[in-house]
């Protein structure tokens, strides 16, 4: 082989091979810590990807999903042109149309619906990725609709709500400076590898690690202490830990005395949660509860790493997480270095150590100038606490009932009905819409219900602005031309804004001008950012400061950290929301519904991250799916499997009173006996159809995906999936 052939074989960039390296970021998963991509490009085509070493988060590495970027971009399932539905909804018959025809049709339909039924009857929905969210929110509000919704209706916002109810301003874990990290139901190794690496590094320098998780994970395997609770009992565990901390006087008495509200009632309430009671309620041995309380409370600086969804995917989720976050207040670990430090977000929920005008940009029309958001009646606490968006979990019902007002049209970006509980029910609700547009990279089952489908491009084919907690900022540039006729979601939004004739100067000025406007307080411009395709450190980063509450009150009604929520006090009588972080068992559980549990003896726990999948986004790739053969499958403990005569890869049926799905059995000790865990969103076995539409946390509207009741049967081999 000649030298050049060898260089080509190794995909070595340089003049000899004509292979060029271009910079981008990965947005296949979107934890708001996007990994940097080095794209090896030959003749305009990506031939290999690698992590960018410049990226302060990923530092040159990628996960299996990001490493699959090439298959993701070049998938045969990409939507190639705008499409107009020509068959019945769901059949999947479409005709290609031009962008002009598509966008003009959308603009005229939306304008007509707005005139006839009001702007609020048009919903704007953002699924993945998250880069276009500020622009879609502005589009919704400039259009006049309060109904900007996102996938954060089932992820993140309830966790944020719990923190806001306690502290007003959420604080993130300062892992690098913590002496003890309490990971409460997160597995960053499979969801957010940079955090995982930070934990490994901190562990090597001596940080203690406590992991609360019903599952055994690589994170729990690394822990000094793993509290393997029964799903949905997080609140009881947190209260029992608080009991030990208070009893042993390990709490921060100065902080409690000076900066908190409702401590006495809280202290009174946790009296009952002795370690023994904690063990009874959670399954975690009392001795471990004590050990965890001492480990967390006796070090100087301890941080809590929450998860955006696992704890709040319980019908008692927000209350449970309130009890967890109360621990940070109890021990004075809120807004301190090495604790849960408050870092105000700069852009898309992410702190970038720069001031921006994002809020003003996205809230182009104040809430008060618009009708109530979807879910306003049902989830009043959401409307009080969550400023960003409507609660989309109410969307299927409002489409179906037209109450309190009809929803006529949906403009979805990456909308996937499988995100909702009773996904089949929502699929049917979609059929009732007058007009439905979905923008996606791939032709999904949801797109088949749309009147018009628009092809979006991937992150490497577009520009997007992202901030990083390290004080880093990137405005990516397309590394390759968009495939087929696909376009960036942001381009689509700006084009639609124009065709809708919105009187919005920033939409009229274009993306770069909008970014300049958003970043104006930081002094950074789009032109400057374009000179740094891999991103740059921000000039004059805001220095992290602790205990800011000494100068500025907590953003709560009492102005203090609240063991007892003043917001919830308002609803205590009307809605029955307890003002203390009261523990109640999950809506369907052995404790709450013992009769049901007789017939449905297993706890159904769904959606924990697998390292190769993120929601439905990488199922179609052979590289990622090769890492998990025999998928879709459900995890069950080998002891349960032996009892039921189920072997590895046998087909089983998971049955709830609502519905049933058939999947392969995956026997693993990662799940406890008595628990079935199943990944969500798969076309061949969509576990969300097993949940009722209203199986929601009444506080947040979040679905109880992490604990319901089910039974398991070995499927008759003749059953066709």
């Amino acid at each position: 082989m000649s030298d050049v052939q060898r260089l080509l074989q190794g995909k070595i960039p340089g003049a000899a091979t004509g292979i060029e390296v271009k910079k981008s970021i990965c947005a296949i998963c979107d934890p708001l810590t996007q990994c940097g991509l080095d794209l090896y490009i030959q003749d305009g085509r990506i031939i290999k990807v690698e992590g960018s070493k410049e990226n302060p988060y990923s530092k040159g590495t990628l996960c299996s999903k990001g490493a699959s970027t090439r298959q993701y971009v070049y998938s045969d399932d990409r939507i190639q042109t705008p499409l107009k539905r020509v068959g019945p909804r769901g059949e999947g018959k479409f005709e290609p149309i031009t962008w002009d025809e598509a966008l003009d049709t959308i603009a005229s339909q939306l304008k007509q619906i707005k005139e006839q039924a009001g702007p609020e009857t048009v919903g704007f929905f953002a699924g993945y990725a998250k880069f276009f969210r500020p622009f879609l929110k502005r589009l919704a509000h400039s259009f006049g609709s309060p109904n900007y919704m996102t996938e954060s209706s089932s992820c993140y916002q309830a966790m944020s709500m719990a923190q806001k109810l306690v502290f007003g301003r959420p604080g993130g874990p300062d892992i690098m400076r913590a002496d003890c990290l309490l990971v409460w139901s997160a597995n960053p190794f499979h969801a957010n590898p940079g955090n995982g690496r930070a934990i490994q590094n901190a562990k090597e320098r001596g940080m203690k690690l406590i992991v609360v998780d019903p599952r055994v994970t690589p994170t729990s395997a690394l822990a000094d202490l793993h509290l393997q609770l029964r799903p949905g009992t997080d609140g009881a565990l947190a209260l029992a830990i608080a009991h030990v901390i208070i009893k042993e006087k390990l709490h921060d008495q100065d902080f409690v005395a000076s900066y908190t509200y409702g401590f006495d009632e809280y202290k009174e309430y946790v009296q009952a949660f002795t370690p023994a009671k904690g063990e009874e309620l959670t399954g975690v041995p009392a001795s471990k509860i004590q050990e965890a309380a001492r480990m967390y409370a006796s070090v100087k600086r301890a941080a809590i790493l929450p998860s955006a969804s696992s704890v709040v995917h319980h019908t008692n989720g927000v209350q449970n997480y309130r009890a967890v976050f109360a621990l940070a207040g109890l021990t004075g670990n809120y807004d301190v270095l090495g604790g849960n430090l408050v870092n105000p977000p700069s852009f898309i929920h992410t702190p970038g150590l720069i001031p921006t005008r994002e809020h003003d940009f996205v809230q182009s029309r104040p809430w008060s100038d618009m009708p109530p958001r979807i879910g306003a009646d049902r989830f009043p606490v959401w409307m009080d606490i969550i400023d960003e968006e409507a609660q989309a979990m109410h969307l299927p019902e409002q489409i179906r009932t037209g109450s309190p007002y009809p929803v006529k049209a949906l403009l979805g970006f990456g909308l996937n009905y499988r995100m909702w509980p009773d996904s089949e029910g929502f699929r049917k609700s979609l059929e009732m819409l007058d007009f439905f547009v979905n923008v996606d990279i791939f032709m999904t089952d949801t797109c088949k219900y749309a009147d018009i489908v628009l092809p979006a491009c991937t992150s490497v084919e577009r520009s997007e602005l992202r901030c990083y907690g390290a004080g880093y900022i990137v405005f990516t540039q397309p590394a390759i031309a968009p495939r087929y006729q696909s376009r960036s979601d942001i381009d689509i939004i700006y084009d639609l804004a124009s065709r809708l004739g919105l009187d919005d100067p920033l939409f009229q000025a274009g993306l770069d001008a909008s970014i300049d406007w958003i970043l104006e307080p930081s002094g950074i411009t789009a032109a400057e950012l374009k000179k740094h395709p891999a991103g740059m450190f921000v000039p004059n980063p805001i220095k992290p400061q602790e205990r800011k509450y000494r100068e500025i009150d907590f953003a709560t009604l009492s102005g203090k950290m609240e063991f007892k929520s003043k917001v919830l006090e308002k609803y205590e009588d009307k809605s029955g929301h307890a003002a203390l972080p009261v523990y109640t068992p999950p809506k369907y559980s052995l404790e709450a519904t013992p009769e049901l549990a007789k017939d449905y003896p297993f706890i159904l726990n769904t959606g924990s991250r697998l390292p190769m999948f993120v929601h439905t986004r990488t199922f179609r790739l052979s590289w990622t799916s090769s890492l998990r053969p025999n998928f879709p499958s459900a995890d069950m403990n080998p002891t349960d499997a032996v009892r039921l005569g189920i072997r590895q890869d046998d087909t089983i049926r998971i049955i709830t009173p609502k519905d049933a799905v058939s999947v392969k059995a995956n026997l693993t000790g990662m799940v406890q006996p008595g628990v079935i865990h199943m990944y969500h969103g798969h076309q061949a076995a969509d576990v969300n159809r097993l949940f009722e539409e209203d199986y929601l946390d009444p506080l947040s509207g979040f679905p109880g995906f992490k604990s319901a009741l089910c039974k398991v049967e070995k499927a008759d081999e003749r059953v066709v999936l």
Partner: protein
Amino acid sequence: MRELSKMVKNIAIIGNGCAAVECIKALRECGCNDTIHLFSDHSYPVYNPMLTTYYVAGKIDFSKLFPFGTNDELARTFNVRFHTRSPVMTLDTTEKVIVTADGLAVSYDRCLIASGASPVRPPIEGIHSGRVYTMRTVEDAIGLKTALEQKPTRVLVVGASMVGIKLVELFRAAGIDVCLADLATHLFPAAAHPDCAAVLAERLRENGVDLRFGTSLTRLEESGAGLLAYFAGDTMPERVDLAVICIGVRANTAFVDRNCIDTAAGVLVNERMETNVHGVYAAGDVAQGRNLLTGQPQIVGLWSNARYQGRTAGRNMAGEHDVFPGNIPHNITHFMNMDFIGIGDVKNYDKMRKYWDGNHFIQLFWQEGLITGANLVDSYTSSGVIRQALIKGLQQSCVHNQGTMPLVQDLLIRKIIMEVEQA
């Protein structure tokens, strides 16, 4: 009788197989400058007997039978004096001299016996018919390949061995009807447990192979253009165009004075490949090293075993210290798109676990808490790890382990064993 110089230190290598060439390589790598004489019955370069069936099947060219290149190349690279077509008649360990068939006498200082093995033909009537073949040597391969040009329609393979199965495969691939016969009651009698053999036999029958087990061939008779093969107790003979006998091999020790050199089935050697006679070593299919499972001497007729033994012999002959502690019987044979693997002892066990899901077959055997045997079908990915598990269990310090990562290995081994135990 001619004599070569007795003044120079000579090393004599009897045989031209892979054990011989590994010995020569090791000698030179260790800096040995002595004169090396190599004696071979034939004039072919080092060949691999296992490749003969691949050659007959047309899967490889003739030249690929010889993985170490030509004799000339070896002679030049390692400075070896080749004596081809020179069968050794006498190895005189008292006088330290070798005498060949054509009268050449060569004195030696150290000698390696690496004369290999030859196929066994049972002493029955008609066994020397020109229509009866064996499959071991280059000549065997050429002979059978020529015979196949006559387009036989039905053949008899005697011996359900690793060679036998490869012959069955190549005959079936050529569209020839095959009868596979063995005195034993199942396939791979030495390496397979009856349960595993049953799985394989089913697959062979699906591939149109007639199996005739538990009966001995008693007589062969030429009849017209073919052969009649008579089996014990059967009145009806098997009518075939040709027969191939592959019931095993026997060590080539005719020139060895059994009064001087300890021999059993082969030449007995210790861990350094030394025989009981100082300066005389043996390696390869003629050498009987230690079976790590039984602790007893056993010939493990494997290409890699011969190479390790040859290399160990060479290092020790060069004055260095090296040991090859022994081996366990193990075989993998890939035929008709399936793999059969036999490792260790599948006959004696006090615990057995079997995994069989219709696609993959794994059977493990234990003795006194140690894994001592395994059978696998279509599970080659586990075979190396299981083999290693056996060896590691039996032998704490194994030369194979040098430079590897024991932790990774231990974990892999545990994973496979757990999977089988849980199944």
